């Protein structure tokens, strides 16, 4: 994995730049010693490490604005960071760029039940929002697995999902407003407590832009009344095909569960060994289907899902009888990653999405890839929305295994795209899938996306080296290539 070559002249000016930043953010807000910078060298994708030039931790919007203006004037690159939980290297530092950490923006500014929204600073954790409103029976719906640590600002940057997004949507569907500081220091407000943008939905395009367009300094999210009941079914199948057919049939019959997760045999065994949730060990695939909502609805749908599962040859089916049991069903799934971590020294988590109907084919071909690369794979899968999380098992201490794991991961993602899916469902492109963007998009598609970037950050100083496989100058992207003399409509009058 290559990053843009660092600007040595700029690195040589570190002391001067640190002094410039200290003039804006006082005291401990600027981190420059090597030992302290090292704490920021990586995010959730730990295979890649790079200490930053310096770390700046502003605590006001004014400071963010001044830091960006300073960096733009000095040509210093900026990598934004929330909690650093990105699984795609979105917050991987640059040797010639600062980390702009939003950790001090950690306050909830307003809870507004009348308008069903919360205004929060970007460093508030995802779970922190739910915790702030649950006393009144509300919750914030998107629930990425890292919700205890990841920040709402990072969720906006990555457009994070979670196990309940089949029914409740991902981050972008639950946002009302943003305050954003642009690279030139300009502060803009997008949305508010009302719905829809009216014209260009810049909040929509900021969401999931992976820190390449602006720095989010305030977020307004919708909160929802917590469903009165939730029950889960734990269903074992003799094959992934019958499990997949069950998923298709549940959705085909008009049921949208709150969550619908699938695990394959290796993942089931790893999880059961780890948390003893009572998962059946004699099955090839396990489905967890959670139904939430009004009690009468949940009871009715639980029955219907059970009938559908039995029709497709389910070999076991347990229905949670109380809240405790429901949480036990989930415990194995939620611990699937650390559980796999126990059976292999290292694992590499992928994140492609496929059309649900291609599941069996993809799993079969993934097994073949496993043979070719000589690495085992365990699968957990957001079955309801086709988002696969294959975990490739490897040992970083064995020479060449990381390379083989990455090669296998790339093959899996190419396979996802080939069957009509996409490279990433919720983890982001970052540096991890950057070089695969060409499998989904041609040059014109990518040029159009980069021209959007130019509108926000013409010098390309915000998080360069992420998302796009090639850095191109805005001046070059903006050129029009006009082919006069080949006009398709010579008969049209010209003025």
């Amino acid at each position, binding site marked *: 994995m290559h990053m843009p070559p660092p600007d040595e002249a700029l690195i040589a000016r570190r002391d001067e730049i640190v002094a410039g930043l200290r003039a804006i953010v006082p005291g401990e807000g600027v981190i420059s010693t090597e030992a302290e910078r090292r704490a920021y060298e990586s995010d959730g994708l730990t295979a890649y490490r790079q200490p930053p030039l310096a770390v700046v931790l502003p605590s006001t919007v004014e400071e963010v604005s001044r830091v960006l203006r300073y960096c733009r004037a000095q040509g210093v690159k900026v990598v934004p960071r929330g909690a650093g939980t990105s699984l795609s290297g979105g917050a991987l530092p640059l040797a010639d760029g600062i980390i702009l950490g939003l950790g001090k923006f950690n306050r909830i500014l307003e809870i507004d039940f*009348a308008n069903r929204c919360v205004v929060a600073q970007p460093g508030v954790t995802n779970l922190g929002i739910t915790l702030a409103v649950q006393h009144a029976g509300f919750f914030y719906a998107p629930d990425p697995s890292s919700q205890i640590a990841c920040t709402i600002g990072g969720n906006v940057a990555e457009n994070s999902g979670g196990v309940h997004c089949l029914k409740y949507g991902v981050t972008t569907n639950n946002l009302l407003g943003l305050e954003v500081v642009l690279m030139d220091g300009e502060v803009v407000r997008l949305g508010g407590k009302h719905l829809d943008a009216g014209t260009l939905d810049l909040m929509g395009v900021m969401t999931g832009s992976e820190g390449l367009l602006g720095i989010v300094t305030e977020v307004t999210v919708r909160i929802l009344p917590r469903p009165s009941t939730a029950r889960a079914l734990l269903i074992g199948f003799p094959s992934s095909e019958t499990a997949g057919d069950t998923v298709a049939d549940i959705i085909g019959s008009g049921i949208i569960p709150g969550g619908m997760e699938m695990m394959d045999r290796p993942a089931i065994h790893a999880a059961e060994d780890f948390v003893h949730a009572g998962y059946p060990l004699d099955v090839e695939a396990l489905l967890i289907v959670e139904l939430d909502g009004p009690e009468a609805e949940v009871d009715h749908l639980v029955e219907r899902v059970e009938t559908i599962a039995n029709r497709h040859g389910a070999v076991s089916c347990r229905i949670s009888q109380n809240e405790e049991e429901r949480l036990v069903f989930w415990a194995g799934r939620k611990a699937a990653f650390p559980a796999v971590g126990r059976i292999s020294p290292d694992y590499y988590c992928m994140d492609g999405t496929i059309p649900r109907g291609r599941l069996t084919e993809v799993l079969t071909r993934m097994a073949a890839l496993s043979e070719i690369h000589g690495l085992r794979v365990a699968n957990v899968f957001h079955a309801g929305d086709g988002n696969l999380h294959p975990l490739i098992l490897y040992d970083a201490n064995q020479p060449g295994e990381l390379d083989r794991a990455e090669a296998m991961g790339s093959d899996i993602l190419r396979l996802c795209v080939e069957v009509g899916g996409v490279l990433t469902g919720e*983890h982001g492109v970052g540096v991890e899938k950057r070089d695969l963007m060409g499998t989904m*998009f041609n040059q014109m598609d990518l040029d159009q996306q980069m021209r959007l970037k130019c509108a926000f950050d013409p010098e390309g100083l915000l998080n360069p080296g992420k998302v796009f496989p090639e850095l191109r100058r805005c001046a070059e992207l903006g050129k029009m290539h006009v082919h006069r003399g080949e006009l398709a409509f010579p008969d049209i009058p010209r003025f």
Partner: protein
Amino acid sequence: MADFRPTDASDLVSILAWAAAEKEPVEVLGRGTKRGLGRPVEAAHRLDLSQLSGIRLYEPAELVLTVGAATPLAEIEAVLRDADQMLAFEPPDWGELLGGEAGGQSLGGILSCNFGGPRRLKMGAARDHLLGFSGVNGRGEAFKAGGRVVKNVTGYDLCKLLCGSYGTLAALAEVTVKVLPRPEEEATLLILGLNDQAAIAAMTEALNSPHEISAAAHLPAACGGLVPGVAGSVTALRIEGPKPSVVARLGVLRELLGTHGEIADLPRGQLWQDIGDAKPFAGLPDHVVWRVSVAPSTGAALAGDLGRRLDIRHFYDWGGGLLWLAVAGAEDGGAGAIREAIKAGGGHATLIRGPEDFRREVPVFEPLAPGLAALTARVKAGFDPQGILNPGRLYRDM
């Protein structure tokens, strides 16, 4: 002046490559039903996309539909109905409101304007249902974005940007949308005789309960007539879902809301379609019509304030967060007063219907703060550097 009618995507590329080379602006039209909405386009040529039509892929089990961008919505809705599915944002039809006929609009048209009906409150707007598209930008270059799956964060979410761009960033060729199961059962509960404040309080209590309200509207007495046999004001709440669930929730809600006023049941009918379509204003051709999106708790005070300063009729959707206004007699159609009034609480007002010369002078869309206006103009230039796509449609200089 020419009328272009591309028959496929490559035709569309040739036409826009020509227009870009010659700097000849075009008016982009799907089925043309919303020409009377927005600032009048300043272009000599018309780009009529109506031939880019037809269902290309529909997989009910995948909840996904791909169509030519100008496919008539009516055709799509008929096919979805056969599979007990729907576009969950409940696209409104303003054909009659704008002085034409209902039933003519295309899916691409409604996506481009990002309009949603009563269910927008619960299920999101058009922008929440567009999964992917292909189109041609103002440089005459074909490009695509998004995909055909719901979970997708690969690259910038240009789908969001295209929704609400009113054809100013690209001409859409093909669109892929998420579809959802049609609810098995629906029921609407009415509360009779509430004033605006009390209605919003009742709607808020219902929306803050866990009973999954899928639409909440209030029609003051002056906007009556949609509910047969009721003369006063009507507050309406809809619930949807499997039959046992709807029956159970109706019971609970009746009790919960009984403290607010007299409760009545509404048989399944046209009410929600009529509210989405702004039917109360279709019969007031001399009024200027505004659609104002605000924080729900500010809606009633806003309408009260405007009612003292202007000759208006009004009703609410989205639990009070969407205020429909019909204004008579004001020289600027009430633009100044309305925009002044929403400043404090935030939101935006869009002029939905007004005479053409009026729409040229009065800002149709909410004016942007200077920094945001500059950013918007740069985004536009990133797609259409010479301003050949629908110039003037959104803002005078863009």
